[in-house]
């Protein structure tokens, strides 16, 4: 069982290249996702804080 894990992690001797490549890919993709979600949450939170005070009347159908 442990042997199988070791073989897997060893990547046929190329572990020093394969794992950093995969991890780097994951890091880039995940951080882009996280940063974008943070921007979204921050903007939506600000929006929720603002709406009641800054919209005195709802103009339905107005240009």
């Amino acid at each position, binding site marked *: 069982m442990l042997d199988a894990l070791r073989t897997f992690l060893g990547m046929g001797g190329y572990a020093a290249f394969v794992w*950093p490549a995969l991890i780097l890919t994951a890091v880039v993709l995940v951080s*882009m*996702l996280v940063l*974008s979600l943070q921007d*979204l949450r921050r903007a939506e939170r600000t*929006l929720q804080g603002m709406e009641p005070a800054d919209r005195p009347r709802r103009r339905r159908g*107005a240009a």
Partner: protein
Amino acid sequence: MANLHRFANPAQFQRLSRALLPWVAGITAILFVLGLYFALFASPPDYQQGDTVRIMYVHVPSAWMSLFCYTFLAVAGAVGLIWRHPLAFMSARAAAPIGAGFTFIVLATGSLWGKPMWGTWWVWDARLTSVLILFFLYLGHIALSRAFDDPARGAKAAAVLALVGAVNVPIIKFSVDWWNTLHQPASVSRLAGPAIDSSMLPPLFLMAFAFMGYFFTLLLIRIRADLASRKVQALRVAALAAAE
């Protein structure tokens, strides 16, 4: 007040994206799980390149996505310039950094794939060199779109740049190929990578679709974020005007 209503129209997009997002994100997650399973466990190492071929399962889809994203920038730019649909410009602005990210992954994983295969961290092979130039095309697009006080101006200028770039990408590819055959490095004869065995196709395509799904997920999120922050801006401006 007119300002507010200009941003009220993207309500259509907001509704659509709110409905789509969980599905796109969910399918993407499933594709990643399946793709990684096949890439790391259920596919054999290459008879020549060994387990380094597993790097290909992220390197090649990233390369496809980096080209796809640039095409997306050009098409969105054209749509924005011709039909002036604001969502087109917002899509381009949201997509450019994603494309740059994919391009960076191509370069970095290419380097990590190259070291064990060709013995150096960087090789001026035609494909990698073209991708390097593409990376700078992305950086230029991102910088130009944010270089003006008026973001609309930036979006339009970047759209023209994307179209100019799109015309140039085939020319650049052609000239880099030419340059590469003139200066064939002695130690590397054919940097074509492994011949793709049929057992490699499932993980490759699964990962490719996963990356595509990731792109659209992230695109939707970024456009929603852009719309929200613009609404914040508009409300702030309206509040200032009302206070006078």
